[in-house]
């Protein structure tokens, strides 16, 4: 279980500091695929960086903590300060664009055996790597080639092979399929799910594609303006969303057989620079009242394992059904 409690991540800029993740608390159970969704600038990538432990200036961990729930070689619990030593061991990262994530002037096998502090018997490591990439559906010769000789799907597969070679307990995938076409996208996602089933690890997956979240994830975290607005089982989030933002987000997805015009969510997220009080979604929310504008709603467990940060979570949903936005 990974516990993120009251996490505040800020960026230092010339104008002052800004909180890109502002008081976020969730628990990620072991062996669970968690999807993170939300519009650009809501803090998804910052959250991913923070969990991965890549906290470098101008970014800083201002408040809260991440309890990873696993310990290092010496048996000490891993914290944000020591997590960098676990990179690609117990904690892995699959980048957005695998096109550029492999060094184009080095053969892939070199990148496999270049892991620092790896088994000194390079030949044995290479043997294992060859076996492993075949398991992931890659031709064995692919490991001897340069990245440009592989297709986009193969490169992403190779990246996944590199990231999962040491059987990490947590994998962070930041939009792993964004640059791929739908067919390859599905293969990659199936591969990730398969690997997750075999290794029983947790995956944190960021995507803009709600379809990906629906197919792959067990749990969903919806973020809005640096806050978590909804967190719960994917089925529950999709079928009975509690927060109006989630509701509108899902309502904007097309479905087959339904040819009514789709509406986006009017307006845009608030600037994080301003004086933020009350619910941050209030300006765009059809349900907003005075209370929403003044009092910030906490993230509360409304149903078992289903959290939402809204004063009117769930209760007023019927009113929205015929609302002005649908």
């Amino acid at each position, binding site marked *: 279980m990974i516990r993120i409690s009251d996490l505040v991540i800020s960026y230092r800029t010339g104008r002052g500091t800004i909180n890109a993740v502002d008081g976020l608390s969730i628990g990620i159970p072991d062996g669970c695929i968690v999807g993170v969704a939300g519009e650009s600038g809501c803090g998804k990538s910052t959250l991913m960086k923070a969990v*991965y432990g*890549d906290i470098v200036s101008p970014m800083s961990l201002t408040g809260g903590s991440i309890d990873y729930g696993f310990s290092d070689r010496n048996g000490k619990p891993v914290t944000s300060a020591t997590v*960098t*030593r676990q*990179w*690609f*061991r117990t904690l892995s*990262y699959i*980048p*957005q*664009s695998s*096109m*550029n*994530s*492999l*060094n*184009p*002037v*080095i053969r892939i096998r*070199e990148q496999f055996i*270049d*892991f*620092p*502090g790896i088994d000194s018997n390079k030949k044995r490591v290479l043997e294992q790597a060859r076996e492993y990439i075949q398991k992931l*559906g890659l*031709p064995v*010769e*692919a490991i*001897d*080639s*340069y990245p440009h*000789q*592989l*297709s986009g*799907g*193969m490169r992403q597969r190779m*990246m996944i092979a*590199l990231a999962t070679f040491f059987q990490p307990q947590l994998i962070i995938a930041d939009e792993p399929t964004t640059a791929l076409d739908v067919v*390859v996208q599905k*293969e990659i996602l199936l591969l990730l799910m398969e690997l997750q089933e075999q290794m029983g690890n947790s995956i944190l997956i960021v995507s803009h594609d709600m379809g990906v979240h629906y197919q792959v994830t067990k749990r969903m975290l919806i973020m809005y303006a640096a806050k978590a607005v909804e967190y719960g089982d994917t089925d529950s989030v999709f079928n009975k969303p509690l927060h109006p933002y989630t509701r509108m987000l899902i309502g904007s997805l097309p479905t087959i057989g339904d040819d009514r015009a789709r509406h986006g969510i009017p307006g845009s997220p608030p600037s994080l620079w301003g004086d933020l009080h009350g619910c941050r979604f209030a300006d765009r929310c059809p349900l907003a009242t005075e209370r929403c504008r003044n009092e910030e709603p906490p993230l509360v467990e409304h149903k078992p394992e289903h959290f939402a940060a809204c004063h009117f979570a769930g209760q007023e949903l019927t009113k929205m059904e015929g609302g002005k936005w649908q």
Partner: protein
Amino acid sequence: MTSEKVSASEMVAGSHKNDVGWTKSILWLFNLRLSIGLIILLVMGLGSFILPNFAPADPSVQGTYTRYLPPSAEHFFGTNALGQDIFWFVVESVRNSLTLGVVVAFGVVIISTTVGLGAGYIGGRFERITMLFVDTFITIPLLPVLIILGALIRGNTSFLVVGVIIILFGWAWNARTVRSMALTLREREFINMARFSGSNTAEIILREVFPYVAAYTLVGFINTILFAINTEAALAVIGLSKIEVPTLGSIIFWALNYNALFTGHYGWLVAPIVATIALFLGLFLTSTGFNAAFAERRGVQ
């Protein structure tokens, strides 16, 4: 998926063919320019290192032969005003100049690559301070400083000190070039990935960034040999190097000192000048040949 696999394995197999046989894979390197350049360098290099073993006498010792002997079978270019055999003197100077050039080039390439890669990749305050030094060394006018230094240490200097001085004033420009190459790499995704997979700064610089500048380093190495020989010759001609050691510059110094041009002993002047031009031509062709070969491989014609 199967179709992707097939096409992919074909592609991989296709690329695999290039690896068969080491000779085939290295062949792309040799274009006409590079071949001619390397042949010139090989002849001059081997010649100047092997021939002195067969020299009848130490060419730098004065008064071995009668002064001003005309060219003959015994003395190919005749002898000079100091009673030295000009041919053997030139052979020894090519050796000394080449040695100096290679030693200086090693020093310059090591320093400039380290500094340039470090500054370019690490960035931030470290880069600003480092580049302050680099830019300072670039803006210092070389020749006046060398003349002052030469005047100060005249006569007391060793050949090695001359090399160190040239390294001191020669590394900065290369460092700036290497830094600019490292800068373009710093924000690339694969550098991030290398960092995310747990590599530290030194490992990233060595394994991820260096391969990009390796080709330039080779060209820079050859250019630096040129620069070093050139600078030493310039110093020697005005008498500020170690003039007792035969180098391409010191012959010209002695020839000018004894007015070879006016007394009609052209061999004394022409021999070192021709040797210098040949050496420069060889180095220049090798350098541009390498450049062309690397560019062609990248697809730039």
